[in-house]
């Protein structure tokens, strides 16, 4: 109980500081998530249209995803130095994989008959993508976004080790000055942010799947 009191007291005393860290954390994670989202989506669309590129692109994205976060950050420091820029770059590289994979899987999972019907009725390639494939893949793609956003929020915590802002700063400082309450305060907010984001995106995912996803399964891949 004493610990909990200390935590509450700390939040009350240093409200502004925590708000700043929270905002910086959201800013960091959001920038990386949006970049990874856009790059991953475009790459996923590209490799679904150019199947030959799919293997190499997925392999490279997979390698980026496999490297431990802290190593990736460390390896980027000689190139980009320390600070937010490096952190965002690393987080973006990290987030691309789940986006590419889900976009690709979602698009290639759209039933062949549906695509053949759209083509036979005179759709342009662009219309097939925007009116048929992407809407039908939306459920799977949003699942990828959800996965990626939660991961980005978590990994952002480590970013303060290379001089970037965010709630990781509170964790790091708490450790260096032996203030476990401060470490707890930072960690708790990160956990909260991740859980709430996951919940909200989960709601969105369910809403989209209700409209398209369940039906995509039915028209699934079978011939």
């Amino acid at each position: 109980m004493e610990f909990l009191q200390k935590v509450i007291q700390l939040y009350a005393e240093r409200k502004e500081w925590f708000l700043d860290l929270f905002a910086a954390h959201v800013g960091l994670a959001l920038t990386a998530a949006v970049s990874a989202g856009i790059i991953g989506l475009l790459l996923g669309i590209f490799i679904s249209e150019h199947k030959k590129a799919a293997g190499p692109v997925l392999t490279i994205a997979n390698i980026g995803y496999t490297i431990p976060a802290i190593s990736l950050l460390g390896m980027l420091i000689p190139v980009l130095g320390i600070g937010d820029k490096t952190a965002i770059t690393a987080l973006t590289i990290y987030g691309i994989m789940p986006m590419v994979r889900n976009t690709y899987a979602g698009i290639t999972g759209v039933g062949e008959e549906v695509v053949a019907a759209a083509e036979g009725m005179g759709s342009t390639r662009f219309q097939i993508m925007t009116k048929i494939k992407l809407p039908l893949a939306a459920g799977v793609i949003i699942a990828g976004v959800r996965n990626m956003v939660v991961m980005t929020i978590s990994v952002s915590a480590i970013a303060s080790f290379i001089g970037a802002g965010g709630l990781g700063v509170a964790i790091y400082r708490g450790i260096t000055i032996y203030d476990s309450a401060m470490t707890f305060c930072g960690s708790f907010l990160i956990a909260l942010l991740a859980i709430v984001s996951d919940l909200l995106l989960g709601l969105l995912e369910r809403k989209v799947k209700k409209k398209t996803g369940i039906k995509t399964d039915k028209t699934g891949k079978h011939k």
Partner: protein
Amino acid sequence: MRMEMIRLEHVTKSFGRYKALDDVSIVVEEGEFLTVIGRSGCGKTTMLRMINGLQKPDSGKVYAAGEDVGEADLIRLRRKIGYVIQNKGLFPHMTVEKNIIYVPVISGQKDKRQNRKLAEELIGLVGLEREMLDRYPEELSGGQQQRVGIARALASRPKLLLMDEPFGALDEITKRAMQNELLALQKKLGMTVVFITHDIREAMKLGDRVLVMEQGKIAQCDTPENVKKNPADEFVKELIG
């Protein structure tokens, strides 16, 4: 004199070593109902897909609706040819209305009231209630889905309708009703229809002429009576058995 709607001249198509079409030539006249029958893998679907340019011949020429398919703007050509495949071809994320007005919409027709009117007219034409327009395909029965598929193909007022085993997944009773309605609709709108099936009774019932295919070649192409009376070879004889 009747006009030609489709002409295939010495069309050949191979997939790897497998010959899907082997020197096929045929003419289909305007207003004719042609049924195409054969075993799976005999090349009938490939032949149909030549007509709207989904497949390109290795050699030979294809003409449809007065155009050389090899030279034509395929997007524009396909929009004026109705295309119906088995019920899986409906777009599951679009309402029945959105499905029906798909071709007008992708062709640039954006007026909502006009599109709604068109959808209401077409859904009536295929014998369904207007309330169906706001439902999703998966909420309909197989027969209803097939009707929507036909309504969708009619949205661009096509003179030519290509149908690839459209009733293959339906039960006998629904199938028979759909066949009668399709015949009535074809007469009413004066359309040319190419209809693929693997059901010989369906082929004989619907076709002005029946085209029997075997291993990428035309085994026989004649009126149902003549096919029955004088089967061209053992395969046709066996088929109509």
